[in-house]
């Protein structure tokens, strides 16, 4: 991977997430019946950080779950590499609650479509909202985010990488040229 440009640095990531936390509060007028579900393998960390921000602002703990949507994907048949499945952990009921799905990058919308299907198998939430750190465009499905950290126009051949402290040692978002042959 060749990093071409940095879109967000550590401060940028922090500010974007704090703003999203405020927007979630404002839109839902509080945290009653609100839960966060992050999509692995970066969205779950972002969801936990949002929960920490929400707690700082409101003093209330929000339940946080993590979801792996591999088994719900529509593009597995075209996958060159069979993905490793990670654990889904939603240790609370989503029935009748507002679920904020959290992902790092919104691109084609197919992960979110899979996540919506998967969530429905866990119950019937009152509503589902979507929060992403980066929206890079190129949607293939009629899906939009309710909360966006940063809109980044990209070319298809580019790759947006969200690097997080928890998984990559530091917070950074970069645009990279896709490796040849991918």
């Amino acid at each position, binding site marked *: 991977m060749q990093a071409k440009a940095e879109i967000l640095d550590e401060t940028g990531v922090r500010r974007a997430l704090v703003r999203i936390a405020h927007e979630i509060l404002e839109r839902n007028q509080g945290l009653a019946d609100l839960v966060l579900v992050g999509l692995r393998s970066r969205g779950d960390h972002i969801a936990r950080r949002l929960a920490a921000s929400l707690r700082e602002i409101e003093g209330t703990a929000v339940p946080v779950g993590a979801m792996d949507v591999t*088994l*719900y994907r529509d593009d597995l048949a*075209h996958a060159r*590499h*069979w993905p490793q499945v990670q*654990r889904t952990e939603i240790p609370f009921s989503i029935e009748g609650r507002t679920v904020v799905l959290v992902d790092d990058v919104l691109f084609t919308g197919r992960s979110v479509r899979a996540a919506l299907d998967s969530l429905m198998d866990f119950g019937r939430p009152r509503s589902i909202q979507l929060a992403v750190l980066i929206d*890079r465009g190129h949607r293939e499905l009629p899906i939009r985010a309710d909360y966006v950290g940063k809109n980044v126009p990209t070319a298809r051949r580019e790759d*947006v*990488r969200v690097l997080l402290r928890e998984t990559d040692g530091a917070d950074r978002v970069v645009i990279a040229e896709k490796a040849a042959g991918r």
Partner: protein
Amino acid sequence: MTAWARKDLLGIAELRPEEILEILDTAATMKEISTREIKKVPVLRGKTVVNLFFESSTRTRVSFEIAEKRLSADSVNVSASGSSVSKGETLLDTARNLEAMRPDILVLRHASPGTPHLLAARLACSVINAGDGAHEHPTQALLDAFTIRERLGRIEGLAVGIFGDIAHSRVARSNILALSKLGARVIVGGPPTMIPPGIEALGAEVVSSLEEMLPRLDALVMLRIQLERQGGRLFPTAREYSALFGLNRERLRAARPELVIMHPGPVNRGLEIAPEVADGPHSLILDQVTNGVAVRMAVLYLLSGAHRVTSAADAIGGAA
């Protein structure tokens, strides 16, 4: 991405330790699905699985069938009685005819060792060995390893005993292979008539009584005495077997307090294992059954991804 590249799961013998661990790790994620209210994910939607059982089986067949359904595959059960096998069709013809209907995976149980290997080499679909004679029963060994790891946190460095009719047991063979590959020390034991010569070559230590192995063990697999196969020939009476080789509360006193006890089922209560032990605090017998579904889901998932067209569109994953 997974490192799995095999079309078939025929035995533990050919698996590398990393492949075994990949199945166990995948099974750990699959297990959660069975705890949901809607116990189903769409990953194998549109795939057809044929469960071809030439030997009777309840647990294994139902376990495979549930695993298939939880992954949304369509499954068909064929048993030897009532099929064209009883009309004299050869195994290969049966398999070719089934394959002409384009299944994706064939789960096979057969009394003859090597049957799954024979079919796997001739069929385009994936073949899973669900037990071939006294040869191998890989998914049983995988679920046993999974159960031990889940309870004790690891397999490497543990001492695991396998006791009973080692000679006629595919479970013993697959377990010895799997556990040794994962770094456990395997100790097998049973009446001398039930210990096959040369079993040490698989990497197991041999003892002749439960008393000899019990104090050293972290985990113990009690094998089923297969009364329907050779009972009455390898030991004089059931009562004598139970008295000399059965696992009961008395004998268990010599064991470590944290010993876990497993049994592939079906249990002959009071023969190889006393009811109070089978139902006791050391027993993981029902955990094994639960885990069997998760392990079979993992195998079905991994095999489905193995022999795909590699020129297909972009690899998925990353930011999408």
